[in-house]
């Protein structure tokens, strides 16, 4: 039974770094690339690859903007991303509930 629930966990989100990225973006309207990198202690390349995967799944959008002539990469969660994250959370709760504490 619990195997079945584990299969349901969204693989695009079910990874520590991507879970962190999605959590930051769920709690805010949009987040800057450097902020996410710093908070999750990731490298540029690492964060880029995780963001690309999330973008490919249409969970986030990435835009470049200029502020005082400096480029900024802004990441924003999409409605599809929000729904996927909420569903992922529900599944985590189901897993916890499905296993008795002892």
């Amino acid at each position, binding site marked *: 039974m*619990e195997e079945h629930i584990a299969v349901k966990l969204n693989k695009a989100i*079910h990874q520590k770094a991507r*879970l962190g990225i999605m959590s930051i973006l769920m*709690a805010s309207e949009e987040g800057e690339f450097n902020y996410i990198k710093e908070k999750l202690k990731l490298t540029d390349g690492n964060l880029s690859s995780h963001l690309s995967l999330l973008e490919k799944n249409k969970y986030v959008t990435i835009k470049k903007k200029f502020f005082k002539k400096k480029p900024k990469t802004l990441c924003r969660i999409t409605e599809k991303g929000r729904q996927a994250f909420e569903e992922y*959370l529900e599944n985590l709760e189901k897993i*916890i509930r499905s296993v008795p504490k002892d």
Partner: protein
Amino acid sequence: MKEDQRQEALENIELIKEVVLHTKKHVGSYGGGWISIIWGVFCLVGVAGQRLFIPQGALMGVWWTALVVAAIFASILVGQRYHKTQPVRAQHRYLRYFLRFWLPLILLGYTLALFIALTPSFSNHYISIVMLLVVSTGYLIIGLLFFRGILYIGSIGYFCTVLSAIYFLEYSDIILGSLFGVGLIITGLVINKQWKNT
């Protein structure tokens, strides 16, 4: 196997909680600190002006209106600057909820204050009493619905306002203006300090 999955799920939920809480703290505290300081200065300057203008009722109305406009303008500037410079930004819906909550209360306070100003039998000292009761009520509602800490601030504000109205009406504006003004400035400084540590 079952226990491993449960453990992993618990760890992931813990991670989500931690990240969401940290981000919300960062998002919520930046603009709030400066806005709190602006409204603290507004209280202190307002009361000082009220003391000067008390004999001229009409001038006092102009004074408070000008101050409110200036404080709202300054708060909007802080908000705009925050939106441009911060690495994570608040969701628009939170700002909308905030405005929807406070605007009707401010309107209520302003209307009651206007009635007091236009009624000769009422002392103008009641204007600050009414405004602070309305603000304290706002804090009480937020405290009851969401945050216990704000409930205490609201209760203290309400209690002090009622006490001042009963025992020190003539000096209530000075007492309450200083209390709320200094309180807001200290709150703003604390929020700014917390924000720097996030």
